[in-house]
Each structure stands twice: as structure tokens, then as C-alpha cells.
């Protein structure tokens, strides 16, 4: 993709910790990422892996009373970590737009759509009311709302899910921010609408040239839209690379397992792959060694690093822990050994 090199966001060693029972636990644990102009960076991972936490850290929306953010998030020479509120308010909306997962609850039920879109224009542009109105209509048009003047006067509950998500996008792009964060923008939507929204997002990105941080847990969505991918597990990035690198040569056991558990078009009647165990919760998370190790117990401990770090296996393609080198699926081994695809139920 035509990823120009202009660096928008440079996240270095970001930690975000939540206070639970008087202790702080890292939900985002030493993450470093960069986002460039015109880039769609997809962040994938199971529920609870820390995707949203990362996003809210960038835009500074955590409650400082029970959250601790450390590390650097550099935006235009400005470190967003610990930035004062007034300054941050100038950046939010203007330089970073955000799209949330559930557009119904993310829109104020008592405000007209038009007002809600115009709100960010009020604080970031010098447009007068007339101009703002015109801009709102233009934005609605841009996100493919069939009758902008009508919709601008409606309330969120009067719109369909797809329409609402379009409105959310309109809000996010209102000030043409160079950075857009989209936290699971399509999870609440139907497949057909999901496709429309993703296409729209892409189009808009092309138009205004922003960098998009796209958060999702749907690998299909990533494959369809992203330029680069970061796979998260337990607050860490376990694999990172261009979309081709990650999908065509997935390396980390977690990435590979995920891809394998998708129902494949050509494996109709076969059993699906199952990842053993469950995603650990914030408090119970194992914080030493390879965090994914408990879920691939057949791998010998020796195959894991003691302090797994990201290895750059090819330019831009990073993978955590060395276990990927020896990783295999147990049934593959059996299959190889027994020569038959028959296998037993993998316990939980």
C-alpha cells in the first residue's frame, strides 16, 4: 500500500494499569507501535486482550483515579501521556477522531444528530453556525446518508444501526483528523452493513489521508482492510507485520491458532481447531514468561523464552518469543505420525 512515511503516532513502551483492589495491573503491557499517514493499522486479539485500553490511552480518556499510564505516545513532538487536559482537548476531535463499537450508546440520546456532529466543530474550527450546519450536511453526505437534512434533525434512536455508525464516522472525521481510532466499529452490525461501513472507512481514509487504528477481533475484517496488523494477547503484542506477512506467513502460535479456528470454506465437515484454556483475566494474568504458553501445553517449556521479546523475523514482521520456531499443532503431529486425520476431542 502507499504508506507514506510520515509518522503520525509513535507509541513507545506504553503501560496502562488499572487499579483493582488497591493494586495496579497492567492491561496494556509495554506496547510499542507506530501509525503513519494513510496507514490502516489493525489491532486484533480476543476479548480482554487490551485493545480498547490501548485506544483509550491514546486519546486520554481514562479515569486518572484508577488508571496509570506510563510510556510515551508521541504525536507531533507532543507526548500525549500526561498531557494537560486543556491541550488534550484541542487534540481530541481535531487531531484524533474516535469511532466506538456500539453506536447507539455512544450517541447522546437526547441530542439531535446534527448537534452532535457540530459539537466538535464548535471547539476546533472557527466556523459560524451557518457554516457548521453546512459542514454537517456535507459530512453526512460524505458518509453516505441518503437524506442529510432529515437525518441531521433526527435523534439517534430513530436511525438504524448502520446509519448510526455512519454518524459516528461523521463525528470522527468532522475535523479531518490525521488520526482516526476505530474501536470495533462493525461488531454491532450485520455482515452486509459491516461491509459497507468498512468500505466507507477506507474511502474516507483515502480522501483525507488519515492514519487509522482499526481495532477488531475479526480476522476477516483485518484481512479485508488493514495495511499492517498487530496481534495482541494478554496486553502484549505477539505478532506484528504487514497484512500480507501476517496472513500469509503467520508465525506466532496464537495467530496461527486463531486462523485455524476459523471455519474454512474448504474444510466444511472437519472439526474446527480449538485453542485450549481461556483468556486470563487482568488479575490472574501470568506476567512472566510466554503468556500464551499455558494454552499450548504440549510445547516444551524450553521452546519458550524466559523473557519473551519481539523478534524481527523479516523487515517489519515481528513476533514474540522464539516458540514459533518449533510450534506445531498436536493433531498435525499425530496426523503426521498416524497418517490419518481422525482425532479425539480436545478437552477444554
Amino acid at each position, binding site marked *: 500500500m502507499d504508506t507514506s512515511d510520515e509518522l503520525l503516532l509513535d507509541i513507545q513502551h506504553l503501560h496502562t494499569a488499572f487499579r483493582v483492589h488497591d493494586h495496579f495491573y497492567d492491561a496494556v503491557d509495554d506496547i510499542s507501535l507506530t501509525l503513519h499517514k494513510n496507514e490502516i493499522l489493525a489491532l486484533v486479539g480476543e476479548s480482554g486482550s487490551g485493545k480498547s485500553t490501548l485506544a483509550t490511552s491514546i486519546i486520554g480518556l481514562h479515569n486518572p483515579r484508577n488508571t496509570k499510564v506510563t510510556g510515551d505516545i508521541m504525536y507531533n513532538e507532543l507526548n500525549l501521556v500526561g498531557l494537560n487536559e486543556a491541550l488534550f482537548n484541542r487534540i481530541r476531535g481535531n487531531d484524533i477522531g474516535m469511532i466506538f463499537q456500539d453506536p447507539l450508546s455512544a450517541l447522546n440520546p437526547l441530542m439531535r444528530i446534527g448537534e452532535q456532529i457540530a459539537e466538535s466543530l464548535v471547539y476546533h474550527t472557527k466556523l459560524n453556525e451557518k457554516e457548521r450546519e453546512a459542514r454537517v450536511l456535507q459530512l453526512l453526505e460524505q458518509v453516505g446518508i441518503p437524506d442529510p437534512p432529515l437525518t441531521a434533525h433526527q435523534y439517534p*434512536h430513530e436511525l438504524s444501526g448502520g446509519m448510526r455508525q455512519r454518524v459516528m464516522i461523521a463525528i470522527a472525521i468532522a475535523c479531518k483528523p490525521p488520526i482516526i481510532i476505530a474501536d470495533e466499529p462493525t461488531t454491532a452490525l450485520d455482515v452486509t452493513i459491516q461491509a459497507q461501513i468498512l468500505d466507507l472507512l477506507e474511502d474516507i481514509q483515502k480522501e483525507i489521508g488519515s492514519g487509522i487504528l482499526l481495532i477488531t477481533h475479526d480476522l476477516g475484517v483485518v484481512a479485508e482492510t488493514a495495511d499492517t496488523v498487530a496481534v495482541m494477547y494478554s496486553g502484549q503484542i505477539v505478532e506484528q507485520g504487514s497484512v500480507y506477512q501476517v496472513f500469509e506467513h503467520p508465525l506466532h502460535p496464537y495467530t496461527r491458532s486463531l486462523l485455524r479456528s476459523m471455519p474454512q470454506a474448504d474444510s466444511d465437515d472437519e472439526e474446527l481447531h480449538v485453542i485450549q484454556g481461556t483468556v486470563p483475566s487482568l488479575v490472574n494474568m501470568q506476567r512472566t514468561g510466554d503468556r500464551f504458553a499455558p494454552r499450548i501445553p504440549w510445547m516444551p517449556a524450553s521452546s519458550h523464552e524466559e523473557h519473551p521479546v519481539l523478534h524481527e523475523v523479516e523487515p517489519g514482521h515481528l513476533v514474540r518469543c522464539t516458540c514459533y520456531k518449533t510450534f506445531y499443532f498436536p493433531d498435525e503431529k499425530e496426523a503426521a505420525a498416524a497418517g490419518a486425520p481422525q482425532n479425539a476431542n480436545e478437552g477444554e
Partner: protein
Amino acid sequence: MWKTILRRVILMIPQIIILSLFIFLLAKMMPGDPFTGLITPNTSPSQIAKLRQEAGLNNPWYVQYVSWVGRAFHGDFGMSYAMQRPVTEIIGERAVNTLYLAILSVIITYVIAIPFGVWAGRYEGTWIDTSIQFYNFISMSTPSFVVYLLAIAAFGFGLKWFPTSGSVSVSASGFFGIIASRIYHIILPSILIGILTNASTVQYLRSGIVDNKLEDYVKTARSKGVPERVVFNRHILRNSLLPIAAFFGNVITGLLGGAIFAETIFSYPGMGKLFIDSVNGRDYSVMTALVLLYGILTLLGNLLSDIIMSIVDPRIRID
């Protein structure tokens, strides 16, 4: 919307009919009648018996009821036996008094409750919140009449800041003079009512704010770069005021009924006081008319709540 309102109003009719029957029966079950008390050597039992007969009090209750309803239908609620005046006239007079008291009380209630609710919600968990909640609990559990008595002793008789009885000074004259005098008479009771009855409003507002603070749309607003003050006022506070708006009708009707204690202690001639007097005097006509009025007011209050709700909350439609 008008259709719905009309339908709601029509639906009230059966309820009001049942209510009227109910209270009429209750009234008739009360021992004695308006003439029971008229026993002085200056009156003759025979004359009283005659008056009683003429008033129809010796008829079977259903005959009395039907004639009562018939007259009430034409807006004639009869004469007050005790006051020897048309019931509508008496209630009208008292209703105005109660209305003054209720309006000022509501204003004071909200003047206190809204900032308190906002602070408690905004600074949830801090000492501000704790103190406001403590004050709320105290005000809920203190018997109101004790406070009224203490206040009337201190500010009415002691410091002589406020009048201690009545609704208006007899020496007041001129339109503004009378209004001023009326307000002067209700300041103390309204402040007390306001202080003592704002708990539920404060709590509603507080929990609304606490809940709304966590809503996603607040996050959206912040992500737009809206300053915190505006986020609070326009998104959190405005949405939290919703249940309060909806509660407004109830607050009004609640105050109308709940002012009995204040009216009694401040000898303020309002409807609550009138009710107690009419029960004690077996003044059926006044009593039944009052209960009916309260019933209708409650129904209208509910309707008002719903209408307000549908106006302020676009998600609610009455059509």
C-alpha cells in the same frame, strides 16, 4: 399527542367515578354527621333534626350519592356544612393558598436539590457526596413537625423574622402589597419544606449523574475534544435532569398532600388543613370534594409527568 392526552383524560373518568364512590362510602361510614356537634342549649334538637332531614342526610347512602354526583357533575359540590359556604368557593380560596405554598416550596426544593444533586453526583465518593447524603438521610428521617415547631419558635416567635400564622396580613394592601405579604407568610414554611423534602430529588439527580458519567456517549463527547465543563453540563447533567423532569408532576401533587403538617403548625389555611378540619367536622361535602380533587390532581400530575417526559426525551413518544 393531543389525542393521547384526550384519551388519557377520558380514561380517568372511570377511575374518578370509583374514587368518588369509595370516598363517599368512607365519608358515610364516619360516625356522626355535620350536625352531631351542634349541641348547645341554644339549639333545639328538633331544629337540628329538621336541618339534617333537609340536608338529605337521612336518605340511604346511594340516594345521597346519586344526588351528590348529579350535582357535582354540574360543578356544584354543595355547601360546606361547617362553613355555610359553597364548597367550590372554599376550596378555591384554599387552593390558591396551597398553590402559593407549593410553588415556592417546589422552587426552593429545586434550588437546593439541584446543586446538591449535582455536587453529590459530580464528586461521588468524596466528602462532599458523603455530607450531602448524610444530610439527605437526616432530612428524610426527621419528623417534619418537630422541625417546623422548632423553627416557628426560633424564627417566628423568638427572632420575629417571620409571621407565625395565616396566609396574608390583614393590613396588607394593594396588589403588590398583598403578594409581598403572601410571600412573606410562606417563606419560612417553604424553606423548611424545601429543606426537608428534597432528598428524593437529590438522590435521583445524583444517581443519574453517577450513571450517566459512565455512559459511552460521554466518552464520545470527550473524544470530540469538548471541554470537561461542557461535557458535564451538556451531556451528563442534561441527561440526568430527565428523570427529575419526569418526576415534576409527582412532586407537585406530593407537595399538595404533604403540606398538611406545615399548614397545621403555621396555621396556614391551605387544603391540607381544610381536609383535617373537614374530617373532624364531618364536613362531608368538603371532604369528598377534596379527596376527589387530590385524586384528579394526581392523575393530571401523572399525565403531566408523561407529557414532560415525552417532550424532553425524544425516545418517548406519546401519540
